[in-house]
């Protein structure tokens, strides 16, 4: 399983995203190294198809579907938790579900 965390320094959420991701991988008994990829400029954002920080991909697939037409840029990504709140982080249960799908 390949696990990637793409992040941008202008958004403070990536350390928490990484800790959450590693916790969920441990809880699911998955031995995978998280590749931490810093996205530093708009050109790289387009190349990496980066919709915002943080973005977590498992086997190349985003743990949360990216809305169609979402621009690729250096920005903080807006997530919705399962109870409908806006959050800078994906709902942990969405991350867990993606890990289980790939396992």
């Amino acid at each position, binding site marked *: 399983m390949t696990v990637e965390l793409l992040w941008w320094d202008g958004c403070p959420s990536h350390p928490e995203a990484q800790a959450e991701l590693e916790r969920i991988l441990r809880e699911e008994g998955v031995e995978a190294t998280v590749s931490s990829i810093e996205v530093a400029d708009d050109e790289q954002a387009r190349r990496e198809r980066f919709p915002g920080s943080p973005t977590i991909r498992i086997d190349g697939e985003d743990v949360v579907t990216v809305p169609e037409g979402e621009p690729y*840029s250096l920005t903080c990504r807006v997530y919705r938790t399962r109870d409908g709140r806006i959050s800078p982080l994906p709902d942990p249960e969405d991350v867990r579900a993606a890990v289980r799908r790939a396992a």
Partner: protein
Amino acid sequence: MTRIGELAPEFDLSDTDGDPQPFQTPAVVIFTCNHCPYALAWHDRLMDAARDYPDVHFYAINPNDAERYPRDSFEAMRERVQRDEGWPMPYLRDGTQDVARAYGAKTTPDVFVLDSGGVLRYRGAPDADHDDPSLNAGWLREALDAVLAGEEVARPETDPVGCSVKWKQ
């Protein structure tokens, strides 16, 4: 950049209807935007605070570079206020970013409380956790209560938390 205890810069900005909004004190100046999840997560708490302190002038200011971040354009700001059927504070466009620079705004949100003399008395986050609505912008309210009572603000400065202000390049 304005420090605690210093006179805060006055500004002359227009709201989403294009109407100039006079600078009045006591005031809460909030640098915010449309696209940042931290600003969005704290938004309702800040709107509630504005409703709960009718004698305080609240200003929401969007300083972000709208060329690189079209979701923060004047048009997008206006649409958002219309969609919400109005806000309890004007949503102002800082197109030159001069106001954000003068205040030393770092993030969206970044909150500044000014007393009736225009002196900066609090700067920082609305409360301790964007993810906990029950905190109810407690740090901001604590500062406002002290300022309105003519007392010292016990916690005059906290670290602003959010997306970096998108400066023009």
